[in-house]
């Protein structure tokens, strides 16, 4: 009895110690990991779910974290497919080149970056310049934009998000956000906050649009024409701030991931894109 007790303690110690020595097992050939952008996350999960229903042999894990996370993981070889809501940065391209990796970027859908405000806000048109000025802190009150005398509360995503980068690069001329921008960890939180804060403005992917917030029509030609972001305007490029969503993988790995990529691009896969609320390729 007493000895049993000792043995138990010994064993638990030994297992603990022996665990330390083990190195990660080789990954199963059939398991494919998709990692990266939170924007693509719901889409990838849905596609993976349907593909696995059809093809019982494939097993797909979907892990979020942000576009940068996925691309880093691809570089480190801890994921087979990276999902990204932006193009590879020049920096990242150089890194892949240094690592002798040939990365294939497959365009799977588009997303229109949508500016939203509280439904009670009277302002419904903004020019690109005005949006930039709001987020760099130059305009701080809605009355300067033809609205009521109300402090503007700008909401942004966290810096790990591809949307954050995209918005900074394309809407703000690569200037930095002002420090008093409120950053939310997820798009859902932005929608929630904008819907309950009267002076709020935020940016989200078109797919996240709900009736509890109001879309802003944006002018890309200094106020001559204003365009509302919709699937249609994003498709025909009259709303020019639609951004590409990618799956990225190493070319040497293409045999393994091909089925997944093909499925995303198939008629069925593109139908899911539309269902989720993103803009299909065709």
């Amino acid at each position, binding site marked *: 009895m007493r000895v049993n007790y*000792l043995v138990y*303690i010994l064993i638990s110690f030994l297992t603990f110690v022996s665990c330390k020595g083990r190195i990660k097992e080789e990954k199963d050939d059939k398991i494919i990991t998709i990692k990266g952008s939170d924007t693509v996350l719901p889409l990838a999960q849905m596609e993976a779910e349907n593909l696995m229903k059809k093809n019982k042999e494939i097993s797909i894990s979907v892990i979020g974290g942000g576009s940068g*996370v996925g691309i880093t993981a691809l570089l480190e070889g801890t994921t087979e497919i990276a999902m990204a809501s932006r193009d590879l940065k020049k920096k990242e391209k150089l890194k892949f080149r240094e690592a002798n990796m040939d990365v294939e970027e497959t365009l799977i859908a588009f997303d229109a970056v949508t500016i939203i405000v509280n439904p009670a806000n009277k302002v419904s048109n903004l020019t690109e310049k005005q949006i930039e000025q709001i987020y760099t802190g130059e305009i701080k009150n809605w009355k300067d934009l033809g609205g009521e005398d109300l402090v503007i509360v700008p909401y942004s995503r966290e*810096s790990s998000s591809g949307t954050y980068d995209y918005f900074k690069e394309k809407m703000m001329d690569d200037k930095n*956000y002002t420090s*008093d921008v409120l950053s939310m960890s997820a798009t859902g939180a932005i929608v929630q*906050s904008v819907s309950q804060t009267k002076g709020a403005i935020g940016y989200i992917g078109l797919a996240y649009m709900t009736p509890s917030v109001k879309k802003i029509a944006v002018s890309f030609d200094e106020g001559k024409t204003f365009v509302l972001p919709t699937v249609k305007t994003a498709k025909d490029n009259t709303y020019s701030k639609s951004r590409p969503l990618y799956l990225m993988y190493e070319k040497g790995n293409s045999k393994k991931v091909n089925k997944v990529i093909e499925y995303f691009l198939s008629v069925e896969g593109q139908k899911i894109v539309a269902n989720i609320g993103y803009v299909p390729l065709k």
Partner: protein
Amino acid sequence: MRKKFQKFQEKFIEGLLMLSGTITSLTVVLIIVFLFNEGLGVFNNKPIDEGYILAINKSNSVKKLSALQIKNIFDQKIKNWDKVGGPNEKIVLINIDDISDYYTEIQLGKDFENLHFCINDYINKHKGVIAFFSESSLPKKFLGKVINIDNIKLSEFLLDEEWFPTATPVAQFGVKPLILGTLWVSFGAVLFALPIGLFAAIFLSEIAHKRVRNILKPLIELLAGIPSVVYGFFGLVIIVPLIQQVFDLPVGETGLAGSIILGIMALPTIITISEDAMRNTPRAMKEASLALGASKWQTIYKVVIPYSASGITAGAILGIGRAIGETMAVLMVTGNAAIIPHTLLQPVRTIPATIAAELGEAGAGSVHYQALFALGCILFIITLVINLTVGFVTKGKNQKKH
């Protein structure tokens, strides 16, 4: 023989127990080693991306730029070189990512093999240029001038007021707003939770009937079981709009919302521990006090509270620890704007929220990654200081008493 075995066994078990006894110390040491090893690395690095440089035209007299100046230049807030001690020349920005706007793909080459040529050309042509590109594309015979950027200094790290860890070309690592944000929110939380927690602890241990206590205590402990994410959403949907209305603010995501949520989360810790301590007051001491004619209330604050002071402080420590380190709930209700707070009615960004939100993006080993570990170090030091101070205070009190 048997006796020998038994003796050996005793020794063996004692050794084993001692080993286990040291586990916490070992863990703390390991945490210090790993945290500081990564975190201090930030001071051996430049805030610019590794392998990247900033260059200007040879005729430009500027030699050095601070991180903040560079940020303002690239934000187009500084538009002329004379503002940073250079000649009166308009600043022309060029980022390597946009170089294809100025040169055709044929000029650049298919694999950017002629990139260095184009860079040389561009920098030489524009007097006011400041260019940002990778070291590997630096031409061998460079016609421009590379700008010196200093390593990140501890003083800058602690005192700078801007936190833009992903800003290009030069990241801003000023943690002052984050430290202040964390402290404001946590002390707000404890200010509100400690008295209420103590009241409840006294009620539970000294006043309530056994039956009431048996119902209330598990209920209060249940508060600790609610995951912080739920608190976050509860706060976002209920408390944030409430604060906005009550104080008539433009935005409800404020330090106060964080403080209230954290206060609620710290309550069960404070209550459970101080109540346990109070109930451990020897019955004889209480009865002696009552027998001497003291009222129940007098007994509580003259006998029970002093006796359980160390337990109450322990509860408060854990409460503060929980508040300072709480991540998910704060992430969702405080707005996370990295500005220096002046009141609790402003959005704030705390250290844990920053780590949780940004660690995923920062690639292992990058400056940003190290900066986040440095934030972890700061968090660690803050909690260590609090623990040590309180430990010191309770010890001093106990010694005086005896």
